[in-house]
């Protein structure tokens, strides 16, 4: 969930009202936001870098507000205030308009060349004309772009935004792609020119920019945007040119977004508030390699029609169509009753790209109504409960294993290859293990193929406890299985260990007899269960038996091999049993 940080006093000024922290928290809760933290720059610096560094930093109160991940229209102070003011019915939702250049001139034009085909052959553009920025507005503008980059733009991999001072550049602009060695310009905040190749190595150590290098690093051609005089606007998605970087006192902003028109809509709608004529955006033309000419920003409004009954039935309320229309209007979804039955016409503005279905509109009606004003009622759904037979058996066995003196362990389903192979004197290739492709550490290399390593590690972590230690676990292991749609399946197993100064094979054997008694399986070579000497590399030679039930092998028991014991950092003899319980369902 993205977090937006806004200055409290600035926020209250814009809202035209002062709130206590509690009151504002309450408003957030109702609207679906979360006042996550109340802090200041000074607090943040002192927490992260110590009190000394915080000396002199601003102690203006900051509100950190968590915004739902799909509400890009609330990612800056301007959007938040607009949303809340409309919600509180203090403001009508503005109508965003695309306009032609004020002086009757030609719109700005961006030409996309064929070479971009290998990078991102799509861009959109728009102009914010005659805009007035203050220090705060400017910071908010930059901050919004950063937030969008992190969220809807997926860390710039999907979309890259560039904003430029239009007075320092002149169109038409060209979006093309070139070999990095052929690109040469002075990037933002640098004092000299670099080639793109040099830039990539320069930014390797940049705490912020290095995260985006991989997006184009291995491409033969890098995307680049020039103005008509060859001035570089930007090398998206990495860096802007220095010449056209934005300053506080600029007049017009040229916005370019690679890939997504929604993102462009978001940037311009939020800040068109500060244009000479608020909420208007000057159009720009984009010429595609195939010759198509499109005009942006789209700022498209869409109308959906739905019935009041639909909202009432889904939410569980009973409101008139008129009052539902009013609720929706408070959510920036301008609505009116159409006059046909209880049908409501709902207008979805370009800022609400999250509304893609009637259910999204229904949710907004519910939010405006107040979730906590909805009457809670019990559904009349009649059903009979059933336990999953496998879990029922597991629950019953667990109780009786504890009654038999064994203590339940709960170990991880993920472990290292070593745990299930080398440490058990097994070959990893023979384990049928499922392997994880992106583990951050060795602890998560594979899904366990047996429960034994987890129990042995539990013993090792509890060596200080009085002996004997008797542990069990009934849980799932994971094995590759070609017959399953995903190529793997779980297997429910029972494992127990006895750890003491003497191996206690008879104790573990006794546990097997008890488990079989619980499962109502008699000792019998054919119709019941029996054990038979076996060789298994995990166990001490001559001290291992295979367990058969109705002639089918279900597991092993025995005294563990001394190497296994030492590899798990244990010092005492240990016997173990491991069986599949699925045959007993």
């Amino acid at each position, binding site marked *: *969930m993205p977090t937006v940080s806004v200055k409290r006093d600035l926020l209250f000024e814009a809202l035209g009202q002062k709130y206590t922290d509690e009151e504002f928290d309450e408003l957030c809760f109702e609207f679906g936001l979360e006042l996550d933290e109340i802090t200041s720059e000074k607090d943040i610096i002192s927490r992260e870098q110590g009190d000394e560094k915080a000396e002199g930093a601003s102690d203006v109160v900051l509100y950190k507000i968590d915004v*739902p991940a799909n509400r890009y229209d609330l990612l800056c102070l301007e959007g938040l205030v607009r949303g809340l003011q409309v919600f509180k019915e203090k403001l009508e939702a503005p109508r965003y308009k695309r306009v032609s250049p004020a002086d009757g001139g030609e719109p700005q034009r961006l030409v996309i060349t064929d070479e971009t085909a290998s990078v991102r052959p799509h861009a959109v553009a728009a102009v914010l004309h005659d805009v007035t920025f203050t220090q705060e507005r400017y910071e908010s503008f930059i901050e919004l772009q950063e937030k969008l980059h992190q969220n809807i733009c997926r860390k710039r991999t999907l979309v890259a935004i560039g904003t430029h001072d239009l007075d320092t550049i002149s169109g038409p602009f060209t979006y093309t792609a070139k070999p990095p060695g052929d690109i040469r310009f002075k990037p933002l905040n640098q004092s000299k020119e670099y080639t793109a190749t040099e830039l990539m190595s320069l930014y390797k150590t940049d705490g912020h920019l290095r995260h985006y290098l991989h997006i184009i690093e291995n491409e033969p051609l890098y995307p680049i945007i020039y103005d008509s005089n060859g001035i570089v606007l930007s090398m998206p998605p990495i860096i802007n040119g220095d010449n056209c970087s934005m300053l506080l006192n600029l007049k017009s902003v040229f916005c370019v977004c690679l890939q997504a028109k929604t993102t462009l809509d978001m940037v311009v709608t939020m800040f068109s508030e500060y244009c000479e004529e608020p909420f208007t955006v000057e159009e720009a033309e984009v010429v595609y390699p195939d010759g198509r000419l499109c005009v942006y920003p789209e700022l498209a409004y869409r109308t959906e029609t739905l019935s009041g009954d639909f909202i009432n039935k889904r939410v569980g309320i009973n409101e008139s169509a008129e009052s539902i229309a009013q609720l929706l209007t408070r959510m920036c979804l301008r609505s009116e009753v159409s006059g046909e039955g209880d049908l409501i016409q709902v207008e979805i503005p370009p800022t609400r790209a999250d509304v893609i279905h009637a259910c999204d509109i229904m949710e907004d009606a*519910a939010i405006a109504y107040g979730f906590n004003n909805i009457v809670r009622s019990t559904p009349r*759904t009649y059903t009979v409960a059933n336990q999953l037979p496998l879990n029922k058996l597991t629950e019953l066995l667990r109780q009786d294993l504890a009654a038999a003196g064994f203590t339940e362990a709960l170990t991880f389903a993920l472990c290292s290859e070593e745990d299930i192979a080398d440490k058990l004197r097994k070959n990893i290739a023979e384990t049928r293990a499922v392997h994880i492709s*992106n583990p951050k550490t060795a602890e*998560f290399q594979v899904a366990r193929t047996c429960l034994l390593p987890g129990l042995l590690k539990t013993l090792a972590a509890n060596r200080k406890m009085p002996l004997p230690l008797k542990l069990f676990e009934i849980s799932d292991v994971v094995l590759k299985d070609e017959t399953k*749609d995903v190529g793997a399946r779980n297997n429910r197993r029972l494992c127990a260990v006895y750890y003491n100064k003497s191996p206690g094979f008879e104790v573990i054997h006794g546990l097997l007899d008890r488990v079989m008694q619980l499962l109502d399986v008699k000792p019998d070579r054919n119709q019941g269960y029996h054990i038979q000497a076996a060789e298994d590399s995990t166990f001490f030679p001559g001290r291992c038996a295979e367990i058969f039930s109705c002639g089918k092998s279900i597991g092993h028991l025995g005294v563990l091999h001394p190497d296994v014991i030492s590899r798990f950092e244990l010092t005492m003899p240990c016997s173990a049993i491991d069986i599949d319980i699925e045959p007993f369902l």
Partner: protein
Amino acid sequence: RRRRWWWKLQLQHCLSLTGDRRTGLHMADTGLLESLLRLLEKVDGGTDSQDVAADLGVDHQVIVGAVKSLQALGEVISTEQKSSKHWELTGEGREIAEQGSHEARVFNAIPDEGLPQNELMKMPSGKVGFSKAMSNKWIRLDKAHEGGPRVFKTVETIEDTVRDKLQLVQKGQSAKLEDKEKNELKKRKLLSEVTVKSYWITKGSSFSTTITKQETELTPEMIASGSWKEKNFKPYNFEAMGVAPDCGHLHPLMKVRTQFRQIFLEMGFTEMPTNNFIESSFWNFDSLFQPQQHPARDQHDTFFISDPALAHEFPQDYMERVKKVHSEGGYGSQGYKYDWKIEEAQKNLLRTHTTAVSARMLYKLAQQKFTPVKYFSIDRVFRNETLDATHLAEFHQIEGVVADYGLTLGNLMGVLHQFFTKLGITKLRFKPAYNPYTEPSMEVFSYHEGLKKWVEVGNSGVFRPEMLLPMGLPEGVSVIAWGLSLERPTMIKYGINNIRELVGHKVNLQMVYDSPICRLDS
């Protein structure tokens, strides 16, 4: 560590034995004990063990032993330890008390005709006795005597005050001496001041002058013969802990799981088969209308599988419908408008939520004539996240799902209210939230009386039509669902701060042994 009651009894027994051994007295030697008790019977307000020793004419240490034996019998006597300063003769002091002071011995050794000095000096007390007797003016030395210096008595009789004083101390009457006198004797190393530990003995609650041997435990023989009626039993120490029973223990997280399972069963929910940790991206994300670029599908959040890397079997028609709703929309939806790829859907992973199983179950449900269902599951899910004191790479998700015609958001709140009431949580409120596969989505908050604030206890919502309709569920069917983690309520219930002490091999087994039963509503 647990102290055990028998251990304490044994220790007591052991103490009385050491007492006995020290004095050479045995429990059988009841004569002395009874004399002590008779003596105690006569005095009001108790007596000092030193006085008892004096009265009975035995060494104090013998009485100390007797007191310890009596203590072991229970409440016959009660005692209080005391310590007092006390004058005692040194070895030399005792010799003088018996044989007289050195000066007296010198005086008595001299006949009327006197004794040559060199002979006198050969006596054991010669040197000291001579100088003391001289300064007492009991004797004189004739240096000019023919045949060498000779010593003569100067008085007829003497009074040996040193011996008298020491004898007084020996009889325990040191109080009759002045401090100055005692200090002088101390200077001569004849007296020393010692600290004596003694007991102040009073009658106990079951005082008696006769000793009956106390029995430790009731035996089968006593029951058979009826002899228990006459026996006196050693009292139990009820302050000590009992012996821990030799038993196994269930894991606290699993105990809580059992309770949650019970709650769902009480509410008529059927358990879903969640025994499939490996899932395809298709069921884990795509079927839930979670777009393929969604951050949750990132390598940083999800464990992907390298072997077996891909799932190879999907319901073809359904998959086509899923593809369409993502890329083009439909069922009244705009869709996400992107290029949906089967390669992305095929990628195997460790399921990030049990909702993948709910999706499979709902798809299965849609393939038959619709009947309302209530499903639940509690099982492991996996996240490739940063680990800390409250987050592990795997945890248990609790999930409830209800599918029926015409379910409302109010119904979801109603079910949540019933569910949380069974957990002992009655104050609930709901916050609008975002979740890719539910709309509306609500975070569930409960009022925490301890923290005095609302805390998030779960997530819930109504599944999106873009998820349900491609499965083939009828148009009017709504599916409401909610989820929470099993670990968090367990950590709160059992007061555990670090999740590693609870889950995984680093578990604190003592905590497992000691954890109480789980009743979530109390």
